């Protein structure tokens, strides 16, 4: 009788524990902004139209905001995204898109983004740099709570060379378009992001 009782208990508790542990992986992260309904029209480094986030539906998106004239912070953010991409590739993890979106579309043309990508030897298979009309970029930044204001400016040959003071962030958007988690872009812990991606898959 006692054995039957234990068996009955195990029959209920094992699937329950399994369910809790499985759902626990993804519920480690809050469901933040829902970007599912948005379809921002942008261009990648090859000039191809990209609809953010509708084109990436069903994939995890690792997204960072940058400007290519940035000498110190944005290259670190891109470098960190690249390190995550390399680590995922090494581990054979697929279904993740990397998007680096400019908040300086006036200067960051498609051609310049391509050059920026080539210079850093980015594997463009699942890593794209995006630009677009100022209005579209501003709307997207507002939805994702990204702030970028022009700050330090140097006059060169009569024209202003300006820099931004900006949000330093890498975000992960899940397969359904929910913003799930964020990291300090230039100081991100690669291992932490990779582990979180594994949980959110």
């Amino acid at each position, binding site marked *: 009788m006692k054995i039957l009782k234990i068996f009955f208990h195990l029959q209920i508790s094992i699937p329950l524990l399994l369910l809790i542990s499985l759902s626990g992986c993804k519920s480690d992260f809050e469901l933040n902004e829902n970007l599912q309904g948005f379809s921002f029209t942008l261009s990648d480094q090859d000039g191809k139209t990209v609809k953010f986030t509708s084109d990436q539906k069903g994939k995890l998106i690792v997204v960072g905001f940058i400007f*290519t*004239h*940035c*000498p*110190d*912070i944005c*290259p*670190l953010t891109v*470098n*960190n995204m690249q*390190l*995550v991409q390399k*680590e995922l590739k090494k581990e054979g993890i697929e279904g993740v898109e990397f998007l680096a979106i400019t908040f300086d579309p006036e200067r960051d043309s498609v051609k310049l983004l391509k*050059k*920026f990508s080539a*210079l*850093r*030897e980015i594997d463009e298979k699942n890593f794209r740099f995006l630009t677009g009309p100022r209005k579209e970029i501003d709307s997207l930044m507002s939805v994702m709570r990204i*702030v970028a204001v022009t*700050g*330090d400016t*140097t006059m*060169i*040959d009569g024209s202003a*060379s300006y*820099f*931004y*003071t*900006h*949000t*330093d962030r890498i975000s992960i958007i899940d397969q359904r378009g929910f913003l799930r988690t964020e990291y300090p872009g*230039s*100081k*991100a*812990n*690669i*291992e*932490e992001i*990779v582990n979180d991606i594994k949980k959110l898959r």
Partner: protein
Amino acid sequence: MLNLIIGILLLATLAPKLEVTNNWVRPSSKDMNTAVYAVIKNNSDKADTLYSVSSNLAKVTEIHETYEKDGSMGMRKVDFIVIPAKKSFELKPGSHHIMLIKLNQDIQKGKKYELTYKFKRAGEIKVSAVANDKASGHGTH
């Protein structure tokens, strides 16, 4: 014994009073900007001041620092950096760096580029910085 003491004293005299080592620059392209990093080691018993850096690589070369305020990151020019006696100061990503604004040429990975650091006491020190896109991320090294 006397020879040993003389030898040590001689070595101490021969050691450069100030060294700029581990020089590297982030690859970038013409008309863009980039940053140069290094370790400045002050071997002397007096503080020294880095007040300028010059190069033909860009239209403007400035000493800058990266700062964080209210969750945003920005950069600003600094007029000088003091390197205390017998101490090192690192110009590093996300912190103080030498900013090259509006490059006159491409900065290509693996190539070397000349700069001159100007110190109040040690005078001018010419260095060669290697172009390298060093990682900043933690956890994979």
